[in-house]
């Protein structure tokens, strides 16, 4: 009996919590498929009487959804390119090139991770205003080309695990550092670079404050700002708001299902933070 309990109990606990964690999703999708009258019914039913797929069509028409999505994806793509270019270079410098000063650089990289963004925000805004970059994607993407501290840290952790013998052999054959980086290290880094690309995408996709501050022209809005304004204008139309939220969540859910192992990897890299 005691043995049986030890087998069953974890399942019961896990299942209970899984239901709690999943239910808001179910409720999101079901609300998005109900009629306005059905939403306000008590007691509520989980399933809609008839599935109102038209809610989605109406939500998409109520705001320029496609445009917001395209704007968002453009920003995401540019950020991925920027991070993939710069973060591995810096990580390579502080983990594989034996130079004095690399520890100082690493310390500062980590220290900037605790620096609140608000401290730089206002002067940055002034710089971008003076450069005439407000209302363009520049303020939201330029930073990526200088490497995010988190990605530099992540790639450094990964590179520390790569045996030095690999590049030593190439060095004896007369290969330059740049050549070793491009032909040996980059291919090895691929799985870690996938993690960088994924997180870079996710961060840009969900960013709200950046676009809110820098994009005034509604034609340039990203999906986060677009959805927020939709909420302000159509606050009471819950079914449409939930339909719009569902559409917004879909790319993230897809990315998560296809890239799960990369998400897990960042967790294990962070535990190296000792």
């Amino acid at each position, binding site marked *: 009996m005691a043995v049986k309990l030890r*087998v069953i109990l974890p399942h019961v*606990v*896990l299942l209970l*919590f*899984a239901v709690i*964690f*999943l*239910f808001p*999703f179910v409720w999101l999708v079901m609300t998005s498929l109900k009629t306005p009258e059905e939403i*306000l019914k008590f007691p*509520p039913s989980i399933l809609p009487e008839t599935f109102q797929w038209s809610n989605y069509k109406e939500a998409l028409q109520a705001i320029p959804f496609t445009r917001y999505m395209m704007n968002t994806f453009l920003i995401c793509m540019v950020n991925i390119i920027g991070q993939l270019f*710069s973060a591995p*270079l*810096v990580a*390579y*410098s*502080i983990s594989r*090139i034996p*130079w*004095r000063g*690399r520890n100082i*650089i690493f310390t500062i990289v980590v220290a900037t991770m605790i*620096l*609140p963004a*608000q*401290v730089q*925000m*206002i*002067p*940055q805004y002034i710089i971008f*205003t003076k450069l005439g970059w407000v209302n363009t994607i520049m303020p939201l993407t330029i*930073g990526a*080309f*200088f*490497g995010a501290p988190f990605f*530099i840290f992540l790639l450094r952790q990964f590179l520390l695990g790569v045996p030095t013998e690999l590049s030593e052999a190439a060095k004896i054959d007369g290969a330059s*550092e740049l050549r070793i980086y491009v032909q040996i290290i980059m291919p090895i880094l691929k799985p870690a670079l996938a993690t960088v690309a994924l997180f870079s995408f*996710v961060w840009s996709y*969900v960013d*709200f*404050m950046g676009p809110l*501050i820098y994009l005034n022209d509604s034609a340039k809005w990203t999906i986060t700002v677009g*959805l*927020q304004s939709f*909420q*302000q204008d159509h606050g009471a139309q*819950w079914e449409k*708001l*939930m339909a719009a*939220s569902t559409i917004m*969540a879909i790319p*993230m859910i897809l990315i*998560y299902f296809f890239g799960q192992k990369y*998400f897990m990897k960042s*967790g*294990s890299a*962070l*535990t190296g*933070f*000792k």
Partner: protein
Amino acid sequence: MRVSTAANQRKHVSGWSRKERHYVYLGLAFASPWIIGFLAFTVYPFFGSLYLSLTEYDLFSPPKWVGLQNYEQIFADDRFYKSLGNTFFMAFISVPITLTVSLLIAVMLNFKVKGINYYRTIFYLPSVIPIVASALLWTWMLNPDFGLVNMALRTLGLTDPAWLLDPRYTKPSLILMSLWGSGSGALIFLAALQGVPRQYYEAAQVDGANWWYRFWKITVPALSPIILFQLIMGLIGAFQIFTESYILAGGKVDGSGSLGGPEQSLLFYAVNLYQEAFVFLKMGYASALAWILFIIVLLITFILLKTSGRWVYYGGE
């Protein structure tokens, strides 16, 4: 300087060898993207905001030097204290709650049962939902009349708070929402848990230690460095809460012309700062707010790191 002490330890006191110099150039070249970005987008703005904090600046006319006036005004401003109080609530009540729940979930996700990977997927899923979307979902879930949470509470015969409309419940609403997203913290704990040697548990089990004892005497100490890391990151995150508040409060200003929901109960430090800078265009004043924020975060991190020696155990035998 670091360089000279390092040189003393090596063979040449006189200077760098050709090889060393070569590596410095190479290292700097590879690190240059970050160095340039750091100087242009961190160092310069960092000191820029210190300067601005001593001026009056509305973006249109040039900054006017006012000395410490902004700081004096801040310490006499009710909104500053309100936002600070709200933020402390999130940092010192919500963050520990969320961390504890993530740790417990991580322990659950470390169970050796069939299908555990499916559970891991489910618990992490809410963390990938954009905050704007999850905040909208929770606004609906916590709707006082038709929200799922209150319908459930009513069915059970319990009181049903007005959640986002009642200033006493707005912050608990936010905690509820952040608990739903606690899977991301759990995942980091889980990775750390998997690094704890099994022998420790086996030895304790042989000695007859129960689950609770093993949790406190093995799991928590083994995870303490990562608990410290998550605590620091959580506190820093709490000081920057913005989107959640903006969406849950509907992005609207209340009767007093301020963001932050009913009775400014969701007016957090970063929300107040955003409002002063980008709604009221008081760039100097907001810069002073940013510097106070920086000092608070620095102090908290420093105190945590200093006192952590008592409870954080670093690996090794």
